[in-house]
């Protein structure tokens, strides 16, 4: 446990440039080092992950990807637990039919069945997805029976110990899969590029995003020739970086200032941008200036396409996202302190300074401005995002905070 604590602390300090993958790796080590009790292993794992996740999220609430991964891992634990339980119940059902009457004496020590009930109950709490609906039906039907039944206790303890190891193992396996997904999401998104970019297309993008550059490269590799306008994305000027990469790959690239976006968008066929996070309502948290681009695109009826890996899907609905999900960066990016030192007479005189500098890092693009999301799971409408999110997260985890009365 101290090891993980140390890991968490170092991670927190480096959270500024944390990625989803790093979060997942951290949580994997948290899980692997977590000692699992015999009873309610899932609950213990969840608590441990939640404890760490809470810290991570509190460290930088704007970095939504971290919270997403914490929730994904929690969801994985629940799923794995559930699948193990269903498997166990499958076995138990056979015996349950035979000893239906003598259940009263047993239910004292059938903690497992209680956990199974809880899991089943939780699974019913989850928003229904087509997949889970189909899979869950036999389980929930089985629950009343299993609750009143139990296997023979000695068989079960052996079963339990093997299963506890199995659960942890499965969870780590699944987290590994998640990490793999995060790593490969760029390629998966890029594979769809040829479906969206045609010959002689003119594409506009703002700032720089690895997903976007891979997407464009993929189209280029498929011998599509098209031109790209890159808005530089002040004050980070990531567009310069993207322009350089695109030019190195032999794409016709034009670098423009952000203010020229409106002027140029009338000649653009498609806007392709990356996102910082995608909210449950289909809104996008993106680098600052994106709302401008989206509005201009809407005005000129240019499709506004957002590329986002599934780890960027956030199950939260935004409230006042421009303020609450934003980050104000240093004014020095805009104004040279030395140059304006004579204007910044803080504290002297009337008390409130005359000069304020606002330098937000993110923009919120409302869902109505987004034409299409391309995730590693294909293209989706903004209105479908909530549904996609229900596949990845369980409703219990939306608020990652340990309850006052933690399980066990």
């Amino acid at each position, binding site marked *: 446990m101290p090891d993980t604590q140390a890991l968490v602390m170092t991670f927190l300090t480096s959270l500024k440039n944390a990625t989803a993958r790093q979060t997942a790796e951290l949580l994997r080590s948290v899980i692997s080092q977590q000692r699992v009790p015999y009873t309610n292993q899932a609950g213990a794992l969840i608590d441990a992950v939640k404890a760490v996740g809470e810290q991570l999220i509190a460290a930088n609430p704007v970095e939504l990807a971290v919270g997403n991964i914490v929730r994904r891992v929690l969801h994985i634990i629940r799923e794995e637990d559930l699948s193990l339980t269903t498997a166990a119940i499958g076995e138990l059902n056979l015996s349950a039919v035979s000893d239906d009457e003598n259940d009263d004496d047993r239910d004292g020590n059938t903690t497992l069945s209680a956990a199974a009930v809880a899991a089943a109950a939780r699974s019913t709490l989850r928003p229904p997805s087509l997949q889970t609906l189909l899979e869950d039906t036999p389980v929930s039907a089985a629950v009343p029976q299993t609750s009143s039944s139990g296997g023979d206790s000695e068989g079960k303890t052996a079963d339990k110990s093997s299963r506890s190891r199995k659960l942890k193992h499965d969870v780590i396996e699944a987290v590994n899969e998640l990490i793999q997904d995060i790593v490969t999401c760029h390629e998966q998104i890029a594979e769809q590029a040829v479906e969206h970019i045609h010959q002689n297309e003119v594409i506009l993008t703002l700032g720089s995003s690895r997903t976007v550059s891979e997407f464009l490269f993929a189209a280029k590799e498929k011998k599509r020739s098209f031109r790209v306008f890159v808005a530089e*994305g002040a004050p980070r000027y990531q567009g310069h970086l993207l322009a350089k990469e695109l030019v190195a790959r032999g794409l016709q690239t034009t*670098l423009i200032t952000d203010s020229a976006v409106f002027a140029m968008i009338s000649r653009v066929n498609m806007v392709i941008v990356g996102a910082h996070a995608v909210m449950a309502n289909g809104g996008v948290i993106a680098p600052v200036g994106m709302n401008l681009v989206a509005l201009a695109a809407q005005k000129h009826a240019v499709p506004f396409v957002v590329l986002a890996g599934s780890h960027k899907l956030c199950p939260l609905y935004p409230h006042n996202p*421009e303020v609450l999900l934003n980050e104000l960066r240093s004014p020095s990016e805009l104004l040279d302190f030395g140059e304006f030192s004579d204007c910044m007479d803080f504290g002297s005189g009337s008390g409130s300074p005359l000069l304020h500098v606002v330098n937000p890092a993110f923009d919120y693009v409302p869902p109505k401005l987004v034409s299409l999301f391309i995730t590693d799971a294909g293209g989706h409408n903004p209105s479908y995002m909530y549904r996609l999110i229900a596949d990845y997260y369980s409703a219990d985890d939306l608020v990652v905070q340990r309850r006052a009365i933690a399980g066990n």
Partner: protein
Amino acid sequence: MDSRRSSRAVIDPKVRQVGFFTSAPLPPDRTQSDPPDPIRSPPLADASSPGNSLSPVMIPPPRHPSDSLLRLPHSPSDAFPPPSPTTTTTSLGDFSDDVTAASSPPPAAARVRGRGSSVKQQGAASSFPGGGFEVPPSVKAPSSVPASGLTTVSVVKLPPGISENAGGSVSVEVQSDRALNSKPLKEKTSKAERRAIQEAQRAAKAAAKAEGIKTPAVTALANAKSAKSTKPSPQRNDSAVVVAASEKKGGDRSVEKDRKKDVPHPRMQYDDKSRVQKLKKRSVVKPTEARNRVELFRHLPQYEHGTQLPVLQSKFFQLDTLHPAVYKVGLQYLSGDICGGNARCIAMLQAFQEAIRDYSTPPAKTLSRDLTAKISSYVSFLIDCRPLSVSMGNAIRFLKSQIAKIPISLSESEAKATLHSDIERFINEKIILADRVIVKHAVTKIRDGDVLLTYGSSSAVEMILQHAHELGKQFRVVIVDSRPKHEGKLLLRRLVRKGLSCTYTHINAISYIMHEVTRVFLGASSVLSNGTVYSRVGTACVAMVAYGFHIPVLVCCEAYKFHERVQLDSICSNELGDPDSISKVPGREDINHLDGWDKSENLQLLNLIYDATPSDYVSLIITDYGMIPPTSVPVIVREYGRGQLWIYEECDPLASPGRCSDAVFFVDGLIFYPSQHLVLSFWFPDRPPSGLNNDLLERSDNFVTVAENGNFTNFEL
């Protein structure tokens, strides 16, 4: 309907012809309609108007109210704010005889002139007392418009007191509908003709409306004037006949020419190889082509920046064709020392002033021709340094028209003095005073507690903010800035020094900051006839976001920057800045990704200077003529671009309805004050003024009928 249309189509040019040819006796250098030439020098006016009145008959000017007849020295008594003490009221003064007669020593050309619109009725003549009109149909119609049933009735009206001197003329052209319809259809109509047709149709509609209501009034009017007009009528008849015979054809042609002049010249397209070659031969500056030209902007000049300046500086002493003042201004444009529409325009005009001062006409040449050529060469040099802004183009047009108008009789020194004062007055009235009026208007739109957003740095907006601050209004300013010029920093510094509370941000954060903003004030480089605001690049973004947030966008622009051109996007006409300033971010050494890459074939750096804001995003345009919706821009261009100045007034007519109880509102948004002889700002078609007892009157092209104490008067606009 169709038949009516076509028949009018035929008639209308004839009507114009009639109107024009009566004016033919005017000195030839004055008859042409000119590009906007808003200011006339007092000496010129003084010299010319008596000259005009010496002609045997006072004849209404051809088409455009900018005509010289209206040049009267201005009396201080009836001026509003005295922005243009010489000419502002001249065109207004002729709305009523007594005012002008009292105020202006030379005979006022009080004219009431209808172009088939004022009094149009079947049997029109019968409703007029015979004495009121010379009965010209027999004389005029055959000569001017042969074979048309058109009847023209002209009334010469004289101001009281100076009636012998042929103070003015009233020509009322009466046409009968039957006559119109009987005219055979003409096959081909040119563009200009078609436009004329449209105008005629409007005029006819107005007349038809007026016919029912106002005939008695007009009769009364005619009656009143008949007594005065009896005397000079024979004279007039004579001249009309003479003129009719001689001038008819020439007149027609020059009208056509006028019409064509209305259409703005196509601009230089830099993808036209032959023209570019031609241009290069002439030009002093020898720019090198940019390496990576942006394909989309091949029609715009894309030259290497930074190379011309040292070359030109070294050439300073070798150029004999250019005046040093002009040269200096050109270099300042090139280096970016002078930027901003007003500053550039003023600098250019002052350079021209100096050039004119030092100018002497070479032997065997006329001043007007040679000087015009000189100015043209200066202008092409300035274009080489930096493409002209619309405001500069308008100023140059004004200057050239003033040069062309100088009578040959004038001595060189007089002519130069005239031009000098003309330029002086253009600067004063069209820029400096206009800004002052804009500030007065705009300040009324600032309330306590407002958060005002502005983009870049506009001189007009800066003045507004400072003035509002001086008035003690409590407000906060948000300055939005953008790369690569960062003009907002300078504005920020100046405003903070003045003690205004400012928030500074960059254009990408506009959606973030717009939540707290209550008004957006923007400057403009130009306002185009379709309401498009042509301004610093990024203005469109700001206006768009403000529109999305339902925040009013107020564009502050002097009327001399209005242009009759139209534009839909920012691509067709624009200016490209130095591409290198895109790849480098001053003060951020860490942004050096593109070092060395800008030589690459595939990378183009695009530094647009302007963009076009669609009129939908603009709530209001504040000009020196008042606060107008963008839809009224063409009205301003048409009504005021012709060269005369109207008196404008500071008060918002809608805010103080009592003040404008006698106002007349026209359907196209013009407000006319008969009692003060003012044409004021505009009302908004979507917000018609209430509580006013006037009907909305339809207005013909340059003629209105106005209800005044139960009497109806016809006025020419």
